[in-house]
């Protein structure tokens, strides 16, 4: 077992485990710094919105949560593709570590969206393209977690889950372009590469909060992937050494 040849050193849990452990505090620190800066600008400095009053401030968490819910899914699908193509051990662990955080981001996107929709549209929920496809994303996360949890053999769980992730990835462009493709209550995107429809302070607040959410997701996924690694590799020498060494 221990003589396994590792073509990709990075893909070896024994290498990645301590690396992730070293990086986690930095990602927490970055998340806190970006979060405090983003909240300061978004909640204290940014002016009111001429159409939506102070209610628009939900944007500072709604948009980051929505971005991350889509982005985390894409990363999981990327790992699923790598795992299915090269049969690497780390990829399935990465996908599993990201799934609960992605699901929470999708939930937060829907939750903050409902709390934003009520005062602005007069309803918590409508079955329109943007909202429905985001709800499907939440179900994809939950489905992936349920599927991988239901299969005892970790490698087979990774394969089945990976297929689900790759099939479900079609939903991501549907979410993203839904506001263009269909008539929807949801407003179009506030930011794109060439121009932004937002005031500069609002835009900065939102980007800083997005960085905060991003760093948070990496930190918590690294924490989770380390637990998964210990569990899955419990029969290897490196895990035994790690546990006996009493490191953190």
């Amino acid at each position: 077992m221990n003589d396994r040849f590792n073509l990709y050193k990075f893909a070896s849990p024994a290498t990645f485990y301590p690396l992730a452990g070293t990086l986690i505090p930095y990602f927490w620190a970055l998340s806190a710094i970006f979060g405090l800066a983003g909240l300061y600008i978004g909640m204290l400095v940014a002016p009111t919105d001429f159409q939506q009053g102070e209610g628009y401030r939900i944007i500072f968490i709604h948009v980051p949560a929505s971005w991350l819910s889509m982005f985390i899914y894409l990363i999981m699908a990327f790992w699923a593709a790598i795992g299915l193509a090269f049969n690497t051990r780390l990829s399935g662990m990465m996908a599993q570590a990201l799934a609960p955080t992605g699901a929470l981001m999708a939930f937060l996107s829907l939750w903050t969206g409902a709390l934003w929709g009520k005062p602005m549209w007069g309803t918590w929920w409508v079955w329109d393209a943007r909202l429905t496809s985001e709800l499907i994303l939440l179900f994809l996360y939950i489905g992936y977690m349920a599927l991988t949890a239901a299969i005892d053999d970790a490698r087979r769980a990774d394969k089945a889950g990976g297929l689900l992730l790759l099939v479900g990835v079609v939903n991501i462009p549907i979410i993203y372009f839904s506001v263009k493709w269909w008539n929807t209550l949801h407003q179009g995107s506030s930011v794109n590469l060439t121009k932004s429809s937002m005031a500069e302070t609002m835009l900065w607040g939102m980007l800083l909060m997005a960085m905060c959410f991003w760093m948070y997701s990496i930190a918590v996924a690294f924490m989770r992937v380390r637990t998964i690694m210990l569990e899955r590799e419990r029969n290897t020498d490196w895990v035994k050494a790690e546990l006996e060494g009493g490191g953190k």
Partner: protein
Amino acid sequence: MIYWNSFSDFLHMGGYGLYVWGSFGVTALIMLVEPIIVARQQKAVRVRLKRQIRAESRGTE
């Protein structure tokens, strides 16, 4: 620089307080609780695996 005139203005959010703080509150709660749960899981797994390894080494000696 600060946009608000008073703290109660800030809490009131121009009448949208319930919606704004309902959003931020749940988000903060989730982002506090999730890492705590993950850290606890990590701890529990370490304890369980250590016990297993000890039991196994006793079995072979």
